Structure formats: C-alpha cells, structure tokens
C-alpha cells in the first residue's frame, strides 16, 4: 500500500539577493513498511524535505499526499526525531516523553502508562525523573526517540538522529533502532531518516534516496538488497557505500 507520495516538490527561501532554491522538483513514493534513508551533501535540502513531509513547512510548489490525501498543517501520524534532540530543558524525562501524548489529549493515567512502556523500550528505566541536562548525549537521544515513539506514529521521521553523538554511542543506538523497528509489537513500521553518513544509510535502510545539492534533486533511488544483520566488512556493503559516494561526488 502506498503510504506517502511527494509530487514535484519545490521549496525556496528568501535570500539577500532574491530567492534561494533549496529543493527543486522532487518526487518519490514510500510504500508501507519501508525504512528509507535520504543522503546527500550538506545544503541539499534533506532536512527541509523532512519538515515538508511533517507539515512544519509548506512547499513553494508541489504536493505531499499521505495515504492518498493531502494533509493540511501538521501531520499528526508522523513524529520527528531531531539531531539536536530538542528536549525541553525544564521538563523531566517522563514529562518530555508525555509531551506528544498530552497534545493528543491522552488521559493522565494512560499517558503515564504509555510513557512507562517506551521508557522501558529505549532503556531509560530509572531516569524518569531526571532532567535532560543531567543526561549524556546518547541518553538524550533515547528520550527524543521515546518521545517520538510514544505517540505511536505511522511514520517516524529522523533528522540526522545520530550525527551529534560520538561514533560508539551512534553504533549502539543504530542497533537499538533496528531492533525497535523489527519488533513486531511496535506500531511504527515506516521510517524516513535523513543522514549524511553513507554507511549509516547502507546499514539501516531498505531504500536509499540520493539527493544532489543546490538545489536538491533526486539523483538516485537505490534498493538495498543486503541481508540483515548487515556486516560492514562484507564486500556487498562496501561496494554499495562506494557507489553512493561516487554519486554524491560526481554531483558536488
């Protein structure tokens, strides 16, 4: 079933000298159950694209169809995970995770129960009452992930979720994300992740969309057929990584 369709999306920003086009004529579709990674050099409009899908931003032209329909404003069946975590510093871990549930009018008792479930899922037990300031980067992003999962979104949008973390923490969190995604009890089956780390895309995704810079256009739409769990040392992994690399380099 078709989950999402972007039709000729363009977006430009006002600039000192006229307008700066960031995305030009971007079209692709997302099928139910896919894990998609979007890669491209910085400034290719990947993050902008994510915000357009979420409804945080309007495209200058073009259409976003979600389950065949156009969504006005914020698409509440999506949830966004931020590179900078975007946790409220004055709210405890639990209150941060309940934020989205509160917005959807979930009753306090149910809120607490669900927050508890996802705190458990991401391994934050014992940190419910801690404040973001007291957590390490990896822990903060676990809160960000739990906050997004707690609203039980159909589509999880991730904006460079592991770029602000150190390499070792990022490896652990990637594995955990894959486990969560493959967990049949989890309601979320679709992920669109923006990243500039090509290995990350090859390791995680079913499909890789490669964007070019200035303005962002779709260069390639690659299926990743490697069996999971994927091993970075295997030949197939490296040849795919090289292929994506060369595509980006050619265009940059």
């Amino acid at each position, binding site marked *: 079933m078709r989950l999402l369709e972007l039709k000729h999306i363009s977006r430009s920003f006002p600039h000192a000298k006229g307008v700066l086009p960031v995305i030009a004529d971007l079209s692709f579709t997302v099928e139910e159950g896919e894990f998609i990674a979007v890669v491209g050099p910085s400034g290719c409009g990947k993050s902008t694209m994510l*915000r357009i899908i979420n409804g945080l931003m309007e495209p200058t032209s073009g259409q976003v169809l979600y389950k065949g329909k156009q969504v006005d404003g914020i698409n509440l069946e999506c*949830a966004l995970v*931020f590179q900078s975590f*975007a946790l409220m510093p*004055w709210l405890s871990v639990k209150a941060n995770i309940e934020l989205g549930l509160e*917005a959807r009018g979930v009753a306090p008792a149910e809120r607490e129960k669900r927050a508890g479930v996802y705190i458990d899922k991401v391994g934050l037990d014992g940190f419910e009452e801690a404040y973001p*300031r007291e957590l390490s980067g990896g822990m903060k992003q676990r809160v960000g992930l739990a906050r997004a999962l707690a609203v039980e979104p159909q589509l999880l949008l991730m904006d460079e979720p592991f770029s602000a973390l150190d390499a070792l923490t990022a490896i652990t969190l990637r594995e955990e994300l894959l486990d969560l995604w493959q967990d049949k009890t989890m309601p979320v089956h679709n992920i669109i992740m923006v990243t500039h780390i090509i290995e990350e895309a090859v390791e995680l995704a079913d499909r890789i969309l490669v964007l070019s810079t200035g303005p962002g256009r779709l260069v390639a739409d690659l299926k990743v057929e490697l069996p999971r769990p994927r091993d970075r040392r295997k030949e197939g992994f490296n040849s795919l990584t090289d292929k994506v690399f060369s595509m980006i380099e050619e265009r940059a």
Partner: protein
Amino acid sequence: MATQPTNAKRATGLLISLLIIAIVLAMFFAYRRSAGLGHLHGPRLHVSLSHLPYYAFCSFMRMSAAYVLALIFSIVYGLLAAKGRAWERVMLPAIDIAQSVPVVGFFPAAIYFFVSLAHGRFGVEMAAVFLIFTSQAWNMALGVFESVKTLPNDSVEALDAFGATGWLRLKRLLLPACVPKLVYNSILSWVAGWYYLIACEIIAVGPAHYELPGLGSYLMKAADKGRTGELITGLLTLLAIIVLMDGIVWQPLSEWAEKFRYEFAASSEPMRSLGMLAVLGSVGPTVLRIFRSLFRPILGAVHRALASTPPFEAARYPVLQRTWRIVRIGLIALLLFIVSKGLIDGTIALLRTLMQPWPSAVRQIPAATGASLMRMLAAYAISLAWTIPCAIAASESPRFARRLAPFAEIVGSMPATALFPLIVIFVIKVTGGMNLASILLILTGMQWYVLFNLLAGISQVPADLKEAVRSFGLSRFATWRKLTLPAIFPSLITGSITAWGGGWNALILSEYFVYRSTTYKVFGLGAMLDDATYQTGNGLMILLTLLSMVFVVLVLNRLVWRRLYDIATDRYRIDY
C-alpha cells in the same frame, strides 16, 4: 553567576554591600557640612527656541562624557572581575548592589561631594555626569564580565597555543568577545542615561537652586511656566536626537557587532530593522571611513616611529625601576589614606547625626515604606500585565515581533522623565490626586526593562524546540505552558530585577513633584526623602529614609530575586 551560591559567598556579598553603603553614606555626611551650597549661582535659563540648540548640545556632551567614563570603567572593571575567582567574589556582588541601590537618593550627596571638590558650575557638572555614569556603568561592566566568562574555551586555548599574551590577547580575543554585549548594553545605558539626565539638570537642595543649561532643565522650566509650545518643541528635539543616534550610531554598531558573535545557530533573526533609518544607517560607516582615512597616516607614522626605536627594557635601568616601585607604594598609601579618612570622617558624621533627637516623623517611616512598596507592586503588576502578552504575541508571530521591536525601542528610549510634567498635570487634572500619577511615573521606570528582556528571551528560544512543539501538535495554550513561558522565565527574572532597580529610582522622582510652585506629593518613602532633602534639610530624616529604602531593596533581593534567579538558572536555562 551560574555557579551555586554558597553561604560564604552570600556572606561576602552582604559584607561588601554593607561596606559600599557605609562608604557612600560616609561620603555624604562627611561633606554635607563642609560644603555650603548657598553660593551657587548658575546661569539663567531661557525658555526660548533660540537657546534650544545650545541646551541640546550641552545635554548631549554631558551624556557623552558620562558614557565615555562608563565605557572605560566597564572594560577595566569587567576584565578585572573576570580575571579570577577571588576578583569575581568581591567585584560581582559590588555591582549587584550598585545596580539595585537607588542612586537618585544619593544624588544630593554627590552634589555636596563634587561641589566641595570644585566650586561652581564645574562641580555641579561633575555631579550630573556622575549620576548619569552610575546609571550607565553597571550593566556594561556586567556585559564585559559575562562575555569574557562565556568565551569558548577552544578560542582561549588557540590563542594560548600561539603564545599570545598581553596586548595581543586583549586586542584579538578579549575585546572582540565583549563587542556584542557591550554594544547592546551601551544602547540600554544611553536610554537609562537620558532618563536621569533630565532629572538631574535642575538641582534644588535645601536653599540652593542650580540650573545646568540643558534639555532637561529647559523641559522642566517650560512645563513649570506652562509654555506648551516650547515644551513640545523641546520634546521633539529630544526625540530627534534619540532617533538620529539610533540611526547613525546604534544601528550600524549593532550590525557590526553581529560579526563578533560566537553562536553558531542561525535561528535568531535580526531584531533591529527600521526601514526609514536604513538610509541614515549608511551615514555612520561613511563618517567612520572618512575619519579613518584621515587618521590612518598619523597613526601609521606614530606606529612606525615606535617600531623603529629599540624596545624599552626596564631591567637595564634599575633607578627607574626603583622609582616606579616607590611611586606605586606611595600611590597605594595615598589611596588607602583617602579611603580610610573618608570612612572615619563619614562614620563620625554618621554617628553625630544619629545622636540628634529623632523627629516624630520617624515613626511614619514603616508605614511610608509600605505605601511605597504597594505603589511599586502596582506599577510592576501593570508592567507584567502588558509585556507578557506582548512577548507571547511576539513569539507566535515574527512579523509582530519585527514591528514591535523598533517601535518599543523608540518609545522606550524616550526618557519618561521628560514626560513627567505632562503626565502629572494631566492625571492631577483628571483625578485630583497624585497617587495614580505616581504609580504611572514608577511604571515608566520599570516597564521597558521587562519588555526588552522578554523580547530578547523570546528571540533566543531555540528553533528546534519551537519545531518540536509544533510537530507534536501542541495546542496554543499547551505551547505557552510547555515552551514559551518556561523559556522566557529567566529573562523575566533578569528583567524584573532591573525593573525594580529602575523602579526604586523612579520612586524617588515620582512621589514628589513641584509644578508652578505648588508641591504635589503622596505619602511614601520617596516623598519623605525628597521632603527632607529639598525642604527641611534634616540630615537624620534623609539618613533614615535612605537606610530603610536600602534595607528593603536588600531584603527583597536576598529573599525574592536571588532565589528566583537561582531557580531560573537551575531549571529554566536553555543550555545546548
């Protein structure tokens, strides 16, 4: 200031504050008797349009002199305070106190002091410049301190790694780091400066009456004589100076200061944009360029001359070194002598004053304090009632924020003291009493601090937090509760602290008003102080009212503001 306050630190703070008060009071009473002000005869003030340009020029020069002093002071003081823990522990509380003690109350003391130093107009000018200086210096010094303190560690280390020390370090690291906050605080300082300038140009202490030629005295006199036309022209002149300053000096400076920012986030939009002033904005840089091209050859010549002479090595001249050491010891001894003499003289004068029989009016001081406090609270409540909704609206609509900012800047930088006559006359005509007028006047000394701090706070809310609440679909009300209000809480507290500081000063100016030789006053601490200073000249009453005011300020600071500030920095700081 982000460190945990320890009891020891609080105790030092308190000790320092008491010491400062003792010094100021001592100065006051030591010189109160010795200097007669009766012989002061100022130039006659003319309420005529032909004199207006000269008066405006005088006021402007007074402001500039005070500002230059404040600038030098703030850089030296701020750098010293940031130098080490020990310096910080003494110098920060001192600024804290200086900022919250109502300097206007000490203005008569300053006049006595400076007139005893230099007789005639020069002494009075010095006193006026000093008062303006005290309204400008503290926040700038704090700005310098904070800039140096928050300098990114890697920048410091990079310079250390190059072995850059002394002047180079100052020029390439410390001073550039201070630029953004210094420029921002300079704008605020000029606003505060105008406020007090207007109030301090007409001096009436006991029998002495002195009018400094200036815009402030012109406005007061015009109001007093009921010359509406001249009054309005004067106000327009003032407005013109402020708008021109904004366009020619502050706008280009703020734009220039943006280059020195350390933040990487591009989330904060430039808040200052006045379409009509964009043209004027180009005048400043042009003038600067002309000046630079004029002075560059001269400076270059000096630089070359200095470079060609061999470097001075003090070690080769032992006599010089020894002389310098002796001179330094002598200077320090002299300074110590002056300070201790002032303190001793002051303490004696203080005790002597306290030994006098206490007048019956003393018993009214607690009640008067309460009445004044109520007025302050009322003014504060009104300030919050309109600034918080404004800030929320600005957070929801960048367009509203962009429109509000320049408007608020112009209106807020109009010194309300200049409008005092109009407000008082109008309110007295309508309500027949001074009470409401007094609250409104206090309000003018409070509200802008709250508004500007809130607007600054709003502009610093990280874009990703705003996106997060939107993407999770939080309702408007929930957004206020979860994001906007917590995010502006620290700014609200800093704004409130400054506002109350301004409010106490305004209180002294607002409870007592002379118009057409009729004195309008309300029952309150400020009025009591004014009465004692300007009418009865009773030293004991001046002392006691000032002391109780300082006492209330300190108690409020320790019990309310300090605690709220700690909560704000603990819980509501946005630190990533």
